[in-house]
Structure formats: structure tokens, C-alpha cells
């Protein structure tokens, strides 16, 4: 950075070439300088999700953590406008005052990284577009972004979208930026759609080892009009005593009557409608012939937090894979996975979280091919310390890669932002 810019902007820079701009203009000034001098930079917030994706090779770091705070919250308009690096916890707390929430159920990735909560910033959630258990019902992170402001790779401040849900003015760049892992724009402000929190929730657990039945139940749940907002299967395998013990401790609830594998589904609403839905589901899913437990709201809420936050894989030192498949392929995938891996299934049969042991990297290639053949995709969310990057972190075909390169170039022609974070050349 030139002395001139430093003098003018007073932007703090530490000895590791990390810049800490305090506002959008400063972000723009720094990026203009980086652009001029062909200097690549890593974009970070609090770093809570920086382990996801490839390692960035950049000589500079742009910490956007000072761009924090709620700009405007209009509960009756169902949106909140925040500076992009506002901590998720601050947003959630503010929304709770009005019984509202971010319906995509943000995942707390802190558990798999350090065994404790570390939610990070809203920009991080946008960058990853990884939604929680309620996704199959309400949509992903990208479905809850109404607009943004940010700085592109040339240092220009740009915006897209707005505060209203119905908006077709120009290209929907909010979607494009969501899930781009900070390779297109340094986000400075985000408008999020918020929704009323459901008054209560119950969770029904069905205890079964029968995988065919599990997939049949997933199918029935997704065909139900009872608006089920969570459906997960936690198998009691592999045959690892330690893991089984951890699992039991994690899901120790008074009303969880059985040990072993279970499928759990969440019903939300007021008390009367929950009872009504349970009645309908009892018939639809034929509960009377199954071993079931019902968790009340006091158990249901923490249950889904544990599921959503991947606590089963807390502090894992192994590789953690995230595979999404068409739900009809569940039987096939479960059969192939056998009892070799620790895994569980979320999103009503669509999402598989699979742990592959360290030093068994070759198996990732095998699983990736399998998922691809089933019409799905696989992301390596966390790599073991010995991971050799033989298999790429993300999956992409040549045509989409070519298009992505062009789009990248239109935002960040000199590849300044997070080079290599997603794909080689991007």
C-alpha cells in the first residue's frame, strides 16, 4: 500500500500485512491499491469457517471484522440490514426480541473445529451457503439474502437487490455472491430476510435399524403436508464402542426411550397444531407399528442444536465430507457406505455428513465418485492434518468451471480475492 493511501485512510495494518478497514470507503481504498499493485489478499471475518475450502495463497489479509453492527431492523417488514461482519450471535439475539429468526438455521461450525461454539459472522455464512437442518423446508442461505453491498476486485463499491422479497431488477447478484467463498466480492453490508419463530416444537424419534424403512419414512415425510421442518437419521454404526458411547452421551434425553439407531423428525407450531400434526403423522407414517419416543420442546430444541452443529463430529481430526444426493438414492448410498463410516443423514434423506478417517484419503475419491454417479455432489468440509489434496475439495465439471472463471474475471479480473480458495484458476 502506498504511503499516500496509508496517510489518508489511517487504516491499521499489522506486521503480518493484515489490514483492518473500519468502513466501506476504506475497504474500497485498500482494494484499489491491491488491484493497482497486483497483490492478492485473503478476505476474513473472524475466521470461524476459514478451514472450509482450499488454503488461500495470498501475501495480504483483509480483515473485515470491524464492519460490524445492525444498520436497520424492521420486524414488520421482515428484514434486517447489517454490516457484513456482524457476529451471527448479535443478529440472532436482536431478532429474538421480536420472536423472529434466520429460518435457514445457521450451522455452528465451531464444534467440528474446536469442540465449542464459534458461529462467526453473517458474511461467513453467506460465503459458504451451507444451511442447517431446516433447509429442505425453507431453503438455503441464498434464499434468505435480499440484497448486499460490497467491493469488487477493482475496488468499486457495488450493490444488488434491496429490502423487498419481490425484486427482479437486474441480475440477482445476491445469489451469485452467496456461496462464492469470498472470491467475488468483499461484502460490506447484507440484507437478510427474517421470519417469525415458531411458537414451539416437538421431536418424534423412530427407533429402527432397517435402512429400507428409513428411506421409506423419509419419502413419506417429504410427501406429508404436516410441514415437518427437520428429519434426520443417526445410525448406530460403525461398531466402535467409543463412538457409540459418545453418541449416547450426546443424545441423552429423558424421553428418548431406546438405544441404537434412530430417525428423528421435528414438528413446529403452536401446541394445538403440533398435537394435530402428530395425529396426522401417526396415521401417515404408521407410528403404531414402530418404536417411537416424543421429545417435548425442552428436549427438542437442544436435540436439533446438536444435530445442526455437527456435534457428533466434535473436534474431529479426521476428514469430514458433506454429500448431497437426490433422496431417492438413499438406499443405494447407505448400502455402499455399509458400516465402515461414522455418518448421519439430514435434510430428510438428502444430506449425508460422513467422516473418513485420517490416512484413508483414497476412500474419499471412491465416495466422491459414488456420490457423483448417484447424481449428487460432495464437498470436503474439513480435512485431516495429513490430507494430501489428491481429491479436490469441491466438485465441478469443465463447462461450469469455464463459466465460473469468466464470472470471476468480471468481478475480480486480477484474481486478488482468495485465489485458489474454491478452484484452481479462481
Amino acid at each position: 500500500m502506498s504511503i499516500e493511501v496509508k496517510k489518508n485512510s489511517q487504516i491499521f495494518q499489522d506486521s503480518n500485512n493484515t489490514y483492518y478497514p473500519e468502513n466501506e470507503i476504506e475497504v474500497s481504498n485498500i482494494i484499489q491499491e491491491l488491484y493497482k499493485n497486483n497483490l492478492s489478499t485473503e478476505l476474513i471475518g473472524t475466521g470461524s469457517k476459514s478451514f472450509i475450502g482450499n488454503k488461500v495463497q495470498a501475501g495480504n489479509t483483509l480483515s473485515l471484522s470491524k464492519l460490524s453492527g445492525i444498520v436497520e431492523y424492521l420486524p414488520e417488514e421482515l428484514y434486517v440490514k447489517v454490516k457484513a461482519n456482524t457476529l451471527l450471535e448479535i443478529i440472532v439475539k436482536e431478532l429474538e426480541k421480536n420472536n423472529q429468526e434466520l429460518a435457514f438455521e445457521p450451522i455452528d461450525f465451531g464444534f467440528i473445529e474446536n469442540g465449542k461454539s464459534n458461529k462467526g459472522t453473517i458474511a461467513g455464512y453467506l460465503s459458504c451457503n451451507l444451511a442447517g437442518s431446516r433447509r429442505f423446508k425453507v431453503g438455503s442461505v441464498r434464499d434468505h439474502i435480499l440484497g448486499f453491498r460490497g467491493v469488487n476486485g477493482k475496488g468499486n463499491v457495488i450493490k444488488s437487490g434491496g429490502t423487498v422479497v419481490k425484486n427482479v431488477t437486474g441480475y440477482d447478484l445476491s445469489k451469485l455472491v452467496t456461496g462464492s467463498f469470498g472470491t467475488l466480492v468483499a461484502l460490506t453490508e447484507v440484507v437478510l430476510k427474517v421470519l417469525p419463530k415458531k411458537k414451539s416444537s416437538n421431536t418424534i424419534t423412530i427407533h429402527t435399524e432397517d435402512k429400507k424403512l428409513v428411506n421409506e419414512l423419509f419419502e413419506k415425510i417429504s410427501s406429508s403436508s404436516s410441514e415437518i421442518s427437520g428429519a434426520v437419521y443417526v445410525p448406530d454404526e460403525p461398531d466402535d464402542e467409543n463412538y457409540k458411547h459418545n453418541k449416547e452421551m450426546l443424545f441423552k434425553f429423558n424421553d428418548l426411550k431406546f438405544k441404537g439407531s434412530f430417525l428423528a423428525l421435528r414438528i413446529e407450531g403452536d401446541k394445538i397444531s403440533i398435537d394435530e400434526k402428530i395425529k396426522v403423522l401417526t396415521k401417515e407414517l404408521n407410528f403404531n407399528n414402530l418404536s417411537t419416543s416424543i421429545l417435548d420442546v425442552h428436549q427438542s430444541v437442544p436435540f436439533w442444536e446438536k444435530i445442526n452443529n455437527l456435534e457428533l463430529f466434535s473436534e474431529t481430526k479426521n476428514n469430514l465430507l458433506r454429500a448431497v444426493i437426490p433422496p431417492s438414492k438413499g438406499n443405494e448410498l447407505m448400502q455402499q457406505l455399509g458400516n465402515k463410516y461414522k455418518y448421519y443423514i439430514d435434510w430428510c434423506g438428502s444430506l449425508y455428513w460422513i467422516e473418513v478417517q485420517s490416512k484413508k484419503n483414497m476412500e474419499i475419491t471412491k465416495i466422491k465418485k459414488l456420490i457423483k454417479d448417484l447424481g449428487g455432489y460432495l464437498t470436503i468440509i474439513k480435512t485431516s492434518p495429513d490430507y494430501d489434496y489428491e481429491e479436490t475439495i469441491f466438485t465441478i465439471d469443465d463447462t461450469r468451471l469455464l463459466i465460473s472463471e469468466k464470472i470471476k474475471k468480471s468481478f475480480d479480473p486480477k484474481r486478488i480475492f482468495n485465489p485458489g480458495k474454491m478452484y484452481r484458476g479462481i
Partner: protein
Amino acid sequence: MTELVLPKINKKTLDKKEYIFKALAKLINPENVLSHVDEIKPYETDALVAYKQTPLVVVMPENTQEVSNILKFCYEENIKVVPRGAGTGLSGGALPLQDAVLLSLGKFNKILEIDFENKCVVTQPGVTNLGLTHAVQHKGFYYAPDPSSQLACSIGGNVAENSGGVHSLKYGTTTNNILGVEIVMMNGTICRIGGKTLDQEGYDLMGLICGSEGLLGVVTEVTAKILKKPQVVKAALIGFPTIKEGGNAATEIISNGIVPAGMEIMDKALIEATDNFSKAGYPRDAELLLIVELDGTESEVDGLLKEVSTICKKNNCSSLKLSNNEKERLSFWAGRKAAFPACGAMAPDYYCMDGSIPRGKLTEALLEIKNLSKKYNLPVANCFHAGDGNLHPLIMYDGGNKEELRKTEEFGSEILKVCVRLGGVITGEHGVGVEKRELMCEMFNDNDIQQQLDIKSSLDEKNLLNPGKVYPILRKCAEEGRVHVHRGEEKFPDLPRF
């Protein structure tokens, strides 16, 4: 309407017209290449009928490979292409160009696969929106986005425009209800995005394509998500003595944590127009009419209707009717659905605007529109998707009167500017097309538009796919400063434009 500036005509294209016809007839079945004036005349406009232009030629490919071959040929020969679905768009997005091939997806009219297990339908883009629902309703499923033109509009057009409908607040628009698309880029590259899985890795190309108004690629296949019909649907029909009280009630319903499946508002002018037209039995003494539709389980819906009733009574509603059965619920909607034809019956022409505003600004917006109506001496009726803030003022005018036409257009522009000033946008669901092109500068500055143009040129570097739509055509590049051209009065008419 007023004279429209379209991209500079490529004379070379016109000169080699015969060559182009022959070449296209080799690429696809010659019967699907229409060049006679009588054959191409029906394609001269979409639903924004004020603008008309016959295309160079109309092609109707039958499969993706043919679309790819056509686009590749046009790319190599520098020929512009305008894609067209059912032609029901209201913003002129499918308006042909004199020197462009009009690519009709009309023959892509088959549903390819109904996959109940994965809750999706794989379809060709020419299938109608309602056609999707018809294909799955026997098992209690439906496709959620329901634009008012759903009987005729195509699913490919829905993707291009990111169409919504009256249920958008709860169920989203097209972008939230599709899982995958196949597109063909201008250079002929075929690209599949998404599939039967939720979400996709990498850049959200589907999100980018959705609502891109045919500027980035031609949609040749869509995988649409289907939903199970709710157990119970009921509606309330509520009249208010003032706009303010009705508007407040709508806002309070949302702030009380209720997310209606649909919530519609009609002003007095529209209540009268529709009631005369459809005999819907609306309260004619009301200044504002609110329709609230709720879905879910029986007790859930009943509970919410009770809450809605309480809120409306608190806001001094003058009438309140709850639907007791399906027939009654549909009768509540009958008037609303007849809103456009009702206006058509009141004046020789009507001009339907489409802005979005924050819900809480409704009273302010309606008041300003009322004042503008007086200023321009043109009657206007308003309907409002109160759930999602989408406002449709219908300006009634006589198209035969040139002066009235000019005033109507100006009136419409002013309404959209009001929407932006109140924190909204210039189009909620009809798209920018050619209609609102010049108003883009009301919402976006140079940098914003330049970024969008950079995306366009990265994927269509020759600017051949649907040029002249969405972005202000006479605008110079950002470095030279913006020219906001009004009615074609340009400072340097000889400069090449993009």
C-alpha cells in the same frame, strides 16, 4: 408507446438475410424456420403490445442440440438472437429486433419426467406454469409460484423473469422453487446446472440465470420442485373505511408473526371495477379491501384467522367475511383475479405497472399515486400483493390518443420513482425488459450497472443475446460518465453504443 431506441441495426445481417434463412433451414427442420411476413407477424410483440417489431426470422428448434447449433451459427456470424417463451411477458423482454433471429421455445412443450420420489418435475421450458401443477395434482402436489398468467406463461419464461405470484412471501418465487436448469450459452455451449439435489456447489449460476431476462443463456430444460398441497386453505375478505387503516392492518398481521400464504389489497377504484365486472360481492362502501389467505392444519388456520380478525377489528374494519368452504374462498379471489380484465372493460387501454415497496409504505404510496392521477388526469386502480410488497397500479387511458399515451408513460415512470424513493424497486415480477430500461439508473449507479454489464460481456462477449433489454441502451461506459437518455434525445448520436 413513445419511440423506443433499439440496438443499432447490423446492416450486414440484413444484407445476408437469404443466406441466413438457408443456413438455418439446414440446421433444423426447414418447416421450423419462418420467414414469410405472415408467419412472423404473430411474433412481433409480447404482452407489452405497445411495442412492435417483426424479427428477421423465427426459428422453432425441437431439441437442445438444435438450439445449440442455432446459437453457435449466430455467434459465428454475429447475428443477434432474441429468445421467446410463451410471449406473455409484460415488459417487452421478448420484443424482437429487426436484425435478430427470434428463437421460439414453443416446441419444447413436453414434461420429461415426473419424479414424486424426489419431489420434482423435469420439464422442457415451453410447458406452461399451470401445466406443471396439472401434471402432479392427482397425487396432491403442485408447483408453488403462480403468476397471474399461469395458464399461458411458460416455465422457461418464468425462469427468465424469476416469476412470482400471489403466494411469494411464504413460498418464494421461481428462483426458490427450481432445482436445476439446462442452458445454452450464446456460443452454443450446453451447460447443466443443478439437478435433483438441493443447492449446488460453486457459484450459484442458477440464481444468476433466474431473472436474467434471456440475456445470459437460453433455458432448454427445467427441474422444478413440487410441494404437497396444504391440508387446509381458508381466506378472509375484509373491508376498511380508509386506506390507512387497511394498510396498518396488513402490516400488523405480519408483525404479529403471521405469514399468510397470500395477502392482497385492492383500492376503491379496483373494488368497484372488479365488482361491476365479476359480481364478486365485494363491499363497495370500503376504501380498501384486504384478502388474507392462510394454509396449514385445520386448527392452525382457524387460530390464525381468529388473530387476523382481531387485528382487523382493532383497525376498524367495516366488513369481515371468513370463507366457510372452498367455493366461498374461490369467490373471494374471483374479483381479484378479474382485476385486469375489469380495468380493460373500463377504458380502451390500461397500463399495468409493477413496483415493489416496503409494506409499511403502502398508505404513502397510494396517496402519491392518487395525487399523480389528478396531476395527469388519468384514472388509476391499484392492487397490491401486500404479503410481498408488490404494487400493481393500473393506469387507464386511450391508446388512440397520442398525448394520453405520452402522459400515461410519464405517469407510470413517476410511480416507479415513488417506489424507489419509498425504499422499493422498479420491478417486482414483470422484469425490466425494454419498458423500464432507462429507469435502472434510478436504482443503480454506474458501478452497479457496470458490474452487471461486465457479467453480461463475460458470458456473451459480442452482446448478441437479447441485446437492448434490461440495461439503459444509450448509456456510455462508466469511465466516460453516464448518459441518461430521455426519449432518444442523445448528445452524440454517432457514437457506437452498447
